[in-house]
């Protein structure tokens, strides 16, 4: 219970605190949530389900091992965001701290709720804080780009709302367990339509290929903290929804119908994002398209709905959070110190900031899926799964490795090496250093021992019936 409500309470406290203490409070609050969830995980048996009930009719909570993994990821992401932004102006703002903690509450709710309507409500609850964070702290000169993001997400959300209502009416169930046993295949085409509603919402959020146009612009203009929150955890809601809710519930006719369309879109995104990333000059835009590429792969592999692949997908989800925090932090550091993100104006940073160069390199390698990092485990097995589905999908998926190397190495090399084009560059602050170190250790640990995560998660993933 406290696990779920703690961020909300802390968010309210943040409003009331004097501004001077905000910076420290954000860090302590997120650390507190993280510590609490770690303790809770230690006392948690993976086969258990923690039930939490506040007496609401449509919202109940049940935490299983997948939920715990995501809570841990969420709390860790928020802690790292607060820590990494410790020196920037944004954490001085009371509004940011409170909104971020509110968003944390929404995310934890998404990952723990046990009812389909609860899932929708928390899904939407995260919109309010991110909207305000983006608007207040981002650099949206015209509200258009921001509105585009919200047009898309709200359109997707409303499709999902219809699907939620339809699903609840059709099955007369609202809990996860109830929906699992409900026979949706009997609904025939209706179940395909309902799943389509969910998939549309997810496709906007992940994002999948034709619905991604909000992404690059939003990422680029958002504050670094906002970009990190968006890509590291908020987009994971969609993958989580796919993994936990939609695929097990719609297993059968509907999934068979949507499998190849979604895999195609995911793989188009893989190639498309990577190709666009190759020539981007803005380092944040580049990473945004890289994100499109990486997440397309996860979404495509998830649609195979294979028990082993789903476990690996969780590893890759965690890995992508690690990578996106690291890379966007690096981009943010460059932007903060040099006021530019254009990699053609950058060069020779490695000479003046060797520590930054080293840690950025580590994260680049993680993102390149070098063996012994989580990225290797994740991408390798996802591509392998796609190969076993069809040789062509496997082939297209594996282009991510080659193209990924091209754009990531460019993104690393151009600013860090080459002729020195920059005046001065302060090396990493201790807070940033700790973030990079934690991320690298986590990525390497997961790369060496992914079993600890996959075994934990496997308990709550449903075995496919076929």
């Amino acid at each position, binding site marked *: 219970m406290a696990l779920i409500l703690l961020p909300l309470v802390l968010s309210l406290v943040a409003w009331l605190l004097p501004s001077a203490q905000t910076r420290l409070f954000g860090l302590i609050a997120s650390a507190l949530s993280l510590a609490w969830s770690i303790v809770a995980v230690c006392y948690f048996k993976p086969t258990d389900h923690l039930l939490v009930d506040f007496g609401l009719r449509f919202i109940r909570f049940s935490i299983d091992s997948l939920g715990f993994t995501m809570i841990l990821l969420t709390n860790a992401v928020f802690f790292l965001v607060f820590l990494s932004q410790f020196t920037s102006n944004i954490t001085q703002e009371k509004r940011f701290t409170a909104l971020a903690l509110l968003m944390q509450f929404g995310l934890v709710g998404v990952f723990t709720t046990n009812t389909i309507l609860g899932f929708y409500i928390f899904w939407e609850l995260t919109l309010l804080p991110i909207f305000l964070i983006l608007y207040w702290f981002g650099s949206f000169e015209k509200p*258009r780009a921001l509105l*585009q993001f919200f*047009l*898309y997400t709200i359109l997707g959300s409303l499709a999902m709302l219809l699907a939620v209502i339809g699903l609840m009416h059709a099955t007369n169930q609202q809990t996860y367990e109830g929906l699992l046993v409900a026979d949706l295949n009997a609904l025939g085409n209706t179940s395909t339509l309902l799943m389509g509603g969910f998939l549309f919402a997810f496709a906007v959020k992940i994002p999948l290929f*034709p619905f*991604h*146009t909000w992404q*690059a*612009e939003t990422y680029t203009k958002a504050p670094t903290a906002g970009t990190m929150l968006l890509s590291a955890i908020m987009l994971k809601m969609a993958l989580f929804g796919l993994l936990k809710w939609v695929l097990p519930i719609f297993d059968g006719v509907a999934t068979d119908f949507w499998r190849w369309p979604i895999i195609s879109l995911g793989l188009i995104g893989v190639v*498309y994002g990577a*190709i*666009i*990333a*190759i*020539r*981007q000059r803005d380092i944040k835009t580049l990473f945004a398209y890289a994100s499109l590429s990486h997440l397309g792969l996860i979404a495509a592999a998830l649609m195979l709905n294979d028990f082993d692949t789903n476990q690996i997908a969780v590893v890759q989800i965690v890995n992508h959070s690690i990578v996106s925090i690291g890379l966007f932090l690096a981009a943010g550091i460059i932007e903060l110190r040099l006021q530019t993100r254009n990699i053609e104006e950058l060069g020779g940073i490695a000479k003046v900031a060797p520590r930054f160069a080293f840690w950025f390199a580590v994260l680049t390698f993680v993102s390149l899926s070098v063996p012994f990092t989580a990225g290797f485990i994740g991408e*390798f097995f996802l591509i*392998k799964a796609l190969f076993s589905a069809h040789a062509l999908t496997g082939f297209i998926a594996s282009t991510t490795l080659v193209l990924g190397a*091209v754009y990531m190495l460019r993104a690393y090399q151009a600013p860090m090496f080459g002729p020195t084009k920059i005046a001065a560059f302060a090396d990493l602050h201790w807070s940033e250093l700790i973030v990079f170190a934690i991320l690298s250790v986590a990525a390497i640990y997961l790369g060496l021992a992914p079993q600890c995560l996959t075994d934990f998660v496997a308990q709550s993933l449903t075995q496919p019936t076929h």
Partner: protein
Amino acid sequence: MLFLGSGSVIHGMHEEQDIRKMGGLAKIMPITHFTFFIGTMAISGIPFLSGFFSKDEIMAQALHHNPVVYGVLVLAVTMTAIYMFRLYFLTFHGQFRGGEALKSKVHESGLSMTLPLMVLAALSIFGGLLNLPGLFFKNVAHWFDHYLSHGTFGLSAVHNVHLDFNTAMGLMIFASAIAIGVLIWAYLNYVKKGATAKEDSALSTWENLSAQKLYVDELYHLVFVKPLLALSGFAAQVLDIQILRNGVYAIADSILNTANLTRKWQTGFLSSYLFWMVFGLITFVAYYILKLSVWH
């Protein structure tokens, strides 16, 4: 190791990379010379050095699966041997061609450079022995293969073939013969005859093509890099921004701009309001008539 060696040479030559200006460095840079020689021999596949065994393994596998591949590999191996020995002899033997001024400055590299070279040379000599293809050390044969296949990463799927003794020996002898033959040819050509690298203008067509790296870099640039960059630019600018993003904007705008049309309905005149109310009422009655005709 060869890279390190050439690095050492270049360092000793004061950042001079053109082999036409080198020659006779063996006396000045003995350690570099010796290790480079071993490296060259290893990569060319002179028997009992590491390159010999690894290459032989690959070629044995190739022959087993596809003779054409084997043929190509033989050609490649021969080429490798030729250019490596040419490089070696031109650099370390014959006369120094870099002029007196430079010659006086040329020196052997420091220990920090030569030590790794020596370690690597030692590994080149003995490394190959670790993996003798079942001829000499039957028990430890292919232990490296086994080490790799222990991994979970699906490498065990690469099945190993064991060729019979005669074929294996035949292949090894053939490969050795090529390598040694090239060694002798190169020695005769570059040391005895004193042939040096020609100036650019004196190159024959074939040699010219080779000097320009067979235009492979350019070909790569033309076939892969340029289209990829063009595609990237196209995808980013045209597809992503102009078609997809602006398409979304255009849809949104066209919906919202209908407001210009709809707001005209609200004229501000009471008479028009009353007119439209009557119109609405007539619509209701029309709806009734329509509905009845549908029902009946």
